[in-house]
């Protein structure tokens, strides 16, 4: 067979005639026709004495006709000399017909790997080479080509590939082979060089996928699906899901495929004129092919226009999102009465609402799926083995994964314009989902049952080696060693909780401060836990391992309660009560950070936490502030009580030589020679830095002068108070609002 390269070089014009060959019109080169005529005549002579020779010759010619049709269908525009010669070779010249072919691949072309198939006889090639088999292909013909090369059945190769594909490498290997191996179509006679173009006729965004499809000889929706898959890759691996917290509806976009698409868009040229389009599809570029393709294009356009109209109608009959088209088309059709138009608008609006609703449902479903996939590894900390585990798996797979898969399948079907509304598939999906729902409900009920009871409470004494220190500072043994590992496995959302290997540390610690009855410090601990019943809860409570270590005046607490897969999470918590003797000091360190107590919920029906609320409990103290225990409670070192409410308005207003001091609703305002200072803000902003605002005004100074006089003291006080209230009000209102705005956000990101 002639080298395809040389064939391409000789694209000089040859005369092509159309013959009627067994009822089919076949364009064929003149020289090729000569060859054909010679062959049939030789056959005729050979079978001259054969009985039924007409029939034989008829059969043979019919077979040749079939082969011609195949050539033409593959994209050849006419039959060439090489075609005819190859066909003759395969049929057998009369001289050869006395002998049979040799077995094996040594001599002949019969074991050619490239074109072996059900319908074509081997036409090309000498030695066995590894091609992709265009005739025996499911996706890209890779398995067919490999099977042919090794001489084994295609199905076996496919099975092997599927098995390898599970390891991940197989998919990559398939893709590489797909790209690397030349298509057997290029071996087929008449195919000219194929170039990679973008297809402007068959494009959804930019024709990249269509062009790729044309080049490889596959349907365009396959590369489209491949481009979409990375977007959904989060399902398989749990890598970065931190920003789930910031954007609950976000996907983990892998932008790689998007970049690839854009690069391809820019790099691959678009096939604009007809010759380029032919080159894209791999047809030989000459006058005939150009004419054919132009004619074909026009027909195509027509068909597509009709198809478009039909499809539009069908789309709208379903949950149409493309409502405007219907509106315009119906309006355009004929003049309708006003009532019809109104009905139409209402329908359009309804469809729109439904569409939005469905869309948001889908988004929520995906977000929920991502969330549950991400949180799945933690299930062992919560669920007991056995049924609960099974239910969890069932829930994940059936309740969550099935609808996701269903939706994805539906989307892909829509994209690929596959119309297969098999209700069996739908019922299967729905059935599986219902099963998943049952699993979910049983899972939930199982978990709730495990938290039903609380334990018996008793106060446990903590041994202090040195109870007579002057000061006790409570700190937490925070994560000393922060190993910064490879970012991809950095589960940062759990840093607050302190996930270390197999242990989860939760900070369900509440600290109470009380006055000691004697002059020693005393620390007690109460353990809390939930369980299926009282006894179980007691056991679990006993298993809580929470240690306190005193080092002189520092009391170091464990960073949290360790939850392992053996000690599962059952709302464990501890209450540490520190009894401070009078005259001694105490400070709760910021490192305890127990404002972030996570994973704790109060069962209000059985609220044992509330039982321990002493009336004597010191309230209102803040972290990182040192307090001293006075006979009537905790006070800061400046002499302020920790509990604001204690003062009850006593200390609201103070005048001394330095100036006026007002304390109203948690706002502390001081007026002195320098002006008015608002020292502190509202309760909600305890954590914020103190903001000082200086309001200098001469009027205030005059007021201050007034104030110094005893008689007008009261009046001045009232005036200033009112003015300052206004200022404070204007300051605190946005703070209040800000506080409220922050609260729900705060709730979102810490599982409060």
């Amino acid at each position, binding site marked *: 067979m002639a080298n395809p390269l040389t064939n391409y070089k000789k694209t000089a014009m040859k005369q092509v005639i159309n013959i009627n060959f067994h009822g089919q019109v076949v364009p064929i080169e003149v020289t090729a026709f000569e060859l054909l005529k010679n062959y049939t005549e030789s056959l005729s002579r050979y079978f001259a004495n054969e009985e039924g020779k007409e029939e034989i010759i008829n*059969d043979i010619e019919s*077979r040749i006709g079939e082969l011609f049709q195949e050539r033409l269908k593959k994209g050849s525009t006419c039959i060439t000399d090489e075609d005819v010669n190859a066909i003759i070779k*395969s049929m057998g010249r009369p001289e050869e017909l006395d002998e049979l072919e040799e077995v094996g691949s040594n001599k002949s072309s019969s074991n050619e790997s490239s074109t072996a198939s059900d319908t074509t006889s081997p036409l090309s090639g000498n030695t066995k080479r590894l091609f992709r088999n265009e005739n025996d292909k499911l996706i890209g013909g890779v398995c067919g080509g490999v099977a042919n090369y090794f001489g084994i059945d295609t199905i076996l190769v496919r099975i092997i590939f599927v098995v390898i594909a599970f390891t991940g490498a197989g998919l990559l290997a398939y893709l590489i082979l797909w790209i690397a191996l030349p298509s057997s179509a290029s071996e087929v006679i008449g195919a000219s060089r194929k170039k990679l173009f973008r297809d402007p006729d068959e494009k959804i965004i930019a024709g990249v996928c269509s062009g790729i499809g044309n080049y490889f000889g596959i349907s365009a929706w396959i590369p489209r699906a491949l481009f979409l898959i990375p977007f959904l890759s989060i399902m398989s691996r749990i890598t970065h899901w931190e920003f789930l917290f910031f954007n609950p509806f976000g996907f983990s976009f892998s932008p790689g495929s998007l970049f690839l698409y854009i690069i391809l868009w820019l790099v691959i040229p678009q096939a604009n004129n007809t010759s380029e389009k032919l080159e894209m599809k791999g047809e030989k570029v000459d006058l005939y092919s150009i004419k054919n393709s132009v004619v074909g294009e026009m027909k195509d356009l027509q068909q597509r226009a009709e198809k478009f109209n039909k499809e539009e109608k069908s789309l709208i009959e379903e949950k149409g999102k493309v409502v405007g088209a219907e509106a315009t088309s119906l309006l355009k059709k004929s003049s309708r009465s006003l009532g019809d138009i109104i009905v139409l608008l209402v329908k359009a609006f309804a469809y729109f609402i439904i569409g939005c609703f469905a869309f948001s449902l889908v988004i929520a479903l995906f977000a929920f799926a991502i969330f549950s996939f991400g949180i799945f590894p933690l299930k062992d900390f919560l669920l007991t083995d056995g049924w609960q585990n099974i239910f969890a798996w069932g829930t994940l797979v059936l309740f969550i994964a099935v609808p996701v898969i269903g939706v994805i399948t539906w989307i892909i079907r829509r994209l690929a314009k596959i119309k297969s509304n098999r209700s069996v598939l739908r019922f299967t999906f729905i059935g599986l989902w219902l099963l998943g729902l049952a699993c979910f409900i049983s899972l939930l009920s199982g978990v709730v049952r495990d938290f039903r009871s609380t334990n018996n409470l008793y106060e446990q004494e903590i041994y202090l080696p040195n109870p007579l220190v002057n000061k006790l500072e409570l700190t937490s043994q925070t994560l000393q060693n922060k190993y910064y590992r490879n970012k991809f496995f950095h589960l940062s959302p759990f840093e607050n909780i302190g996930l270390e290997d197999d242990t989860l540390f939760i900070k369900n610690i509440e600290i109470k401060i009380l006055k000691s009855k004697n002059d020693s410090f005393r620390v007690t601990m109460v353990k809390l836990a939930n369980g299926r019943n009282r006894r179980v809860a007691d056991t679990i409570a006993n298993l809580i391992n929470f240690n306190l270590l005193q080092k002189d005046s520092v009391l170091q607490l464990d960073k949290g309660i360790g939850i392992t897969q053996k000690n599962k999470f059952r709302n464990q918590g501890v209450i540490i009560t520190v009894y401070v003797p009078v005259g001694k000091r105490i400070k709760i360190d910021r490192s305890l950070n127990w404002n972030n107590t996570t994973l704790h919920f109060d069962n209000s029906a059985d609220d044992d936490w509330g039982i321990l609320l002493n009336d004597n409990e010191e309230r209102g103290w803040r972290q990182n502030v040192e307090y001293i225990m006075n006979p009537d409670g905790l006070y800061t070192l400046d002499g302020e009580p920790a509990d604001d409410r204690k003062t009850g308005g006593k200390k609201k207003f103070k005048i001394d030589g330095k100036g006026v001091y007002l304390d109203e609703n948690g706002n502390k305002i001081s007026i002195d020679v320098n002006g008015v200072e608002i020292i502190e803000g509202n309760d909600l902003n305890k954590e914020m830095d103190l903001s000082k605002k200086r309001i200098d005004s001469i009027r205030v100074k005059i007021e201050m002068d007034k104030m110094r006089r005893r008689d007008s003291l009261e009046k001045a006080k009232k005036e200033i108070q009112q003015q300052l209230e206004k200022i404070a009000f204007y300051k605190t209102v946005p703070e209040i609002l800000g506080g409220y705005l922050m609260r729900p956000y705060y709730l979102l990101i810490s599982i409060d």
Partner: protein
Amino acid sequence: MNIENTASQMRKGVLEFCILSIIKQGEAYPSDIIEKMKSANLNILEGTLYPLLTRLKNAEFLTYRWIESNSGPPRKYFSLTEKGADFYKELETTWNELANAVKELSNAEQAHTEEQGSKEDQNFPENPTD
């Protein structure tokens, strides 16, 4: 005499039997038959097959019917007639006898070279081979 000629003569002999075996499994058209033979490592030119099929059909061992196809002219699908089935059975018997005979002879030949002086091989030439 070279090996190619002898080999092809051997194959020629069994060709009918093979073709009939294929058609016996089910209706088949010529390309199909060639494909199956190729997968069994027995290659045949189409130019050889068609005359053979026609002969068999003329002998009324095969019958055919036309089936329209999308990709080209209608195709002939051959199937076995009753007469053909009988003929096939005879061929099968013949083949089995032949195969056994050949097997014995070639094994005997090996046996002879191994244990020299066996008297058995003197009997074999007298065995009737069909």
